[in-house]
């Protein structure tokens, strides 16, 4: 049902579907229509023009009624096209599922055979088959179906291999299911959408192909005619009587176009990735739609200061308030930790600074980002670009995904330098080597020519750090730079970052979900929950005397090494979905101290000096902290 709604929402697909249904309907009722016999020749009335008495579309070179021939030809072409698609899909899918599920030698053998068939330009194979079996519509059908089997087989095999290694298949095995049952109940339901997609995108193609063989005179034989052979027969009179060619040709075009439109719609409706609208490309800078007043800069000492920043995701008719008014600031030489659970808006906050939030669907809807006193929200793209990587640099989480897989790490470093500084290649290269040495990469001179996949995770992240340092930025924003790494490597990267910041007086915004990391690295910390800062202050003050109930319970529920075997203090419930935030404190549903007042209006983030908390009943009296 959902599928049909989706399909109809897609206007082009709906149009294609309607056109196609009309044609199919017409083809179905053709025998019932009062049409002339399509095969009766009448040489006296050859080449009548469309509109002639009794011949709506005119007649062909033998005086046969074009309308009757067109409709009967359409019937034939559709039947053959659909049949070919069905057979190809059936056998191809069966082969693909077997090869993909069983893997190993079976897979190897089958796929070698398939590769062999795919080594032919497909028409050669079709021609060979027709040559052997002799011209004729059935043989053309066999040929077209046969040459398309490898396509299906390969496609379905790929999907099946992916599925066969999914954990739910293992789970089914452990639940006592045998191979046949697993294929039928676990694999097949997940493969069918792919088969449908592949079919809907190839039926049009197969109709073209069978028409093509008929056009060459190898398909349907006279007097029977499908659309292709009508076109083939009309070719001789192309110049003198073009209408005999245009009529069947236009019909093929209409049919195939209808199928293709519908097929695209089917694909979009069935492919979950496309369904969520994920396949949009992000624009060079996040869209800005700022409403309300622009807050002032606040603290003058901060090199970077976020004021009331709001970033949302507009997906269909939902609005996700990923960042709902965040205030943060960081001074030169300072390290600010931002901590929170997954989905609390840490990354979105970080990316908003330089307009790197994917857009669509992201929109910055309010607040300001002051860098050295200048508001960057809504700044012209070229200006933003000139600051990116030069004044404000990023280090991202997964170093394998964040480095370009096909460029040498050296080239990526050199590029980072040369975008902002007009230096020669050799000079940039020397600087790149120096950078790699600074981040303690052994044999920097040779490592510079490595590709990312040739390095270990820790080494790659060092390259990521080197790239961030390339232009001596004022601020580095590190978004969980060590989460993907093993603890031993994490310890090294953290101490490297700490050293670098002390040496260079860098301001660092360090995002993490690990209190241990914050405690070791950061001067100040801000705790985020549901897109807002709920508590902030000097690290020690916050960790030793958390004031917000969320902070204190989060600290309590994370086991700490050395605590021995024990029961953990769990927080019941889940973090809220940011598209359905209730008024008042977002933590209220999970908070033991929640009162009616907590669920009313906005609660301010307040406190003396560097300490602040967003809570009506804080756990502790705030003391003015000192960094």
């Amino acid at each position, binding site marked *: 049902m959902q599928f049909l709604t989706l399909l109809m929402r897609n206007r082009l697909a709906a149009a294609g579907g309607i056109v196609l249904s009309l044609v199919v309907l017409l083809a179905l009722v053709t025998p019932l229509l009062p049409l002339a016999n399509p095969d009766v020749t009448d040489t006296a009335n050859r080449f009548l023009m469309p509109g002639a008495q009794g011949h709506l579309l005119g007649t062909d070179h033998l005086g046969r009624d074009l309308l009757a021939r067109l409709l009967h030809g359409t019937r034939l072409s559709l039947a053959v096209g659909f049949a070919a698609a069905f057979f190809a899909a059936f056998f191809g899918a069966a082969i693909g599922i077997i090869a993909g599920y069983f893997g190993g030698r079976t897979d190897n053998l089958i796929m*070698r055979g398939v*590769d062999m068939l795919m*080594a*032919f*330009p*497909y*028409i*050669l*194979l079709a*021609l*060979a088959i*027709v*040559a*052997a079996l002799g*011209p004729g519509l059935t043989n053309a059908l066999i040929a077209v179906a046969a040459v398309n089997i490898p396509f299906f087989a390969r496609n379905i095999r790929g999907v099946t291999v992916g599925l066969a290694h999914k954990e739910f298949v293992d789970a089914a095995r452990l639940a006592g299911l045998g191979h046949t049952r697993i294929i039928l109940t676990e694999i097949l339901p997940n493969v069918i959408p792919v088969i449908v997609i592949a079919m809907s995108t190839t039926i049009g193609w197969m109709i*073209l192909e069978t*028409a*093509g063989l008929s*056009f*060459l*005179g*190898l398909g349907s034989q006279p007097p029977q005619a499908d659309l*292709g052979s009508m*076109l083939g027969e009309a*070719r001789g009179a*192309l110049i003198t009587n*073009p209408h005999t*060619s*245009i009529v069947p*040709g236009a019909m093929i075009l209409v049919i*195939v*176009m209808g199928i*293709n*439109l519908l097929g*695209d719609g089917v694909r979009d409706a069935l492919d979950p990735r496309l369904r969520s609208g*994920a*396949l*949009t*490309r*992000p624009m*060079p800078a996040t869209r800005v739609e700022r409403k309300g007043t622009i807050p002032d800069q606040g603290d003058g000492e901060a090199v970077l200061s976020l004021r009331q920043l709001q970033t949302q995701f507009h997906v269909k008719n939902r609005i996700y308030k990923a960042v709902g008014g965040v205030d943060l600031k960081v001074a030169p030489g300072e390290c600010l930790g931002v901590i929170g659970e997954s989905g609390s808006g840490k990354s979105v906050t970080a990316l908003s600074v*330089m307009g*790197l939030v*994917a857009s669509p669907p992201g929109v910055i809807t309010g607040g300001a980002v002051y860098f050295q006193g200048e508001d960057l929200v809504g700044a012209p793209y070229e200006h933003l*670009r000139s*600051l990116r*990587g030069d004044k404000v640099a*990023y280090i*991202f989480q997964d170093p394998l995904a*964040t*480095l*370009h*897989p*096909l*460029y040498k790490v050296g080239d990526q470093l050199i590029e*980072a330098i040369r*975008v*902002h500084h007009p230096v020669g290649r050799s000079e940039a290269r020397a600087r790149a080597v120096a950078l790699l040495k600074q981040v303690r990469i052994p044999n920097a001179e040779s490592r510079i020519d490595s*590709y990312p996949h040739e390095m270990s995770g820790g080494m790659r992240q060092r390259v990521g750090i080197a790239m961030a340092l*390339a232009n001596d930025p004022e601020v580095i924003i590190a978004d969980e730079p060590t989460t993907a790494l093993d603890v031993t490597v994490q310890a090294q990267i953290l101490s490297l970052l700490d050293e670098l910041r002390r040496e260079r007086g860098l301001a660092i915004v360090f995002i993490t979900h690990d209190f241990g990391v914050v405690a070791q690295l950061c001067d100040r910390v801000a705790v985020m929950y549901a897109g807002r800062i709920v508590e902030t202050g000097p690290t020690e003050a916050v960790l030793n005397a958390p004031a917000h109930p969320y902070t204190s319970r989060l600290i309590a529920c994370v086991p700490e090494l050395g605590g021995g075997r024990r029961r953990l203090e769990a927080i019941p419930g889940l973090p809220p979905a940011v598209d359905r935030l209730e008024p008042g404190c977002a933590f209220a549903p999970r908070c033991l101290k929640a009162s009616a007042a907590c669920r009313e209006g906005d609660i301010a983030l307040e406190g003396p000096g560097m300490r602040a908390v967003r809570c009506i009943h804080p756990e502790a009296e705030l003391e003015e902290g000192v960094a």
Partner: protein
Amino acid sequence: MTGYILKRLLSAVPVLLGITVIVFLIMALIPGDPALAILGAYATPENVAKINRDLGLDAPLVARYFIWLGNMLTGDFGTSFSLNRPVIDEVLDRFSATLLLAGTSFLLCTLLGIAAGVISAAKQYGWADKGITFAVLLGISIPSFFLGMMMILIFAVELRWFPVSGMKMAYGGGGFADVANHLVMPAFALAVVATGVVARLSRSAMLEVLRQDFIRTARAKGVREGRVVWGHALRAAMVGIIPVLGIQAGFVLSGAVYIEMVFQWPGVGRMLVDAILKRDILLVQGGVVFVAACYVLFNIAVDVAQSLLDPRIKT
């Protein structure tokens, strides 16, 4: 690198053998006496005797295959009875014409298709994207033979920009201008479908790549958008596009059969269709094996290009 090329060439040997086996088996499907089937209308007693001797048709299937293969390896593809000419000579003559046509089309579809796809992706949902998407849809829905016929009607008959057919090259005359003049229409007609497919694929490959983390990294470095799209993103997208180019080359070769019929192009496709209709089996066999082998070699070139582009492929 040379090692890799050699390795790939070596791995082509079983594929080539497989191709001959497949063609041989398909031809073995022909019902009735093979000698009569091969000779068809030319089945004089001396011809039957000759063919039985040449191809060992009395021998069992496996032996016949090896005799046939052995002949081919020495360059003997048999004789075309309808043309009364060695198959290999005819195929070579015709294939050069096809190569010119298909090669031009392939270049066209690669350049136009990738450019259209990249622009379409970079301007997603903009006017350029919508225009390209519609043109692509039209391109992949129109039968190339119908398109060719319509082009003849419009550009040759109505506008008289290009000649309908009658290229002199095939008969040993005609300079570059003559060839080019005759090439424009068929090459375009042939390129349209493949261009559509390449453009579609490039678009989705680009959309996929543009969402990747490393693109965000490039932007975070301050790389200019033009370079992000045409450098970082296209480079990564090519990894997905190149294999499809290999497949598209096969489609262009296949489509050439129709286009050669429509434009009277003296290529191998037209030769094959004529041969089938005249039931000149040896000519079909030889033509199919030869073209398929060339296509295999072309795909090796594609693999090599891929390995040059993607360092993650072990060479």
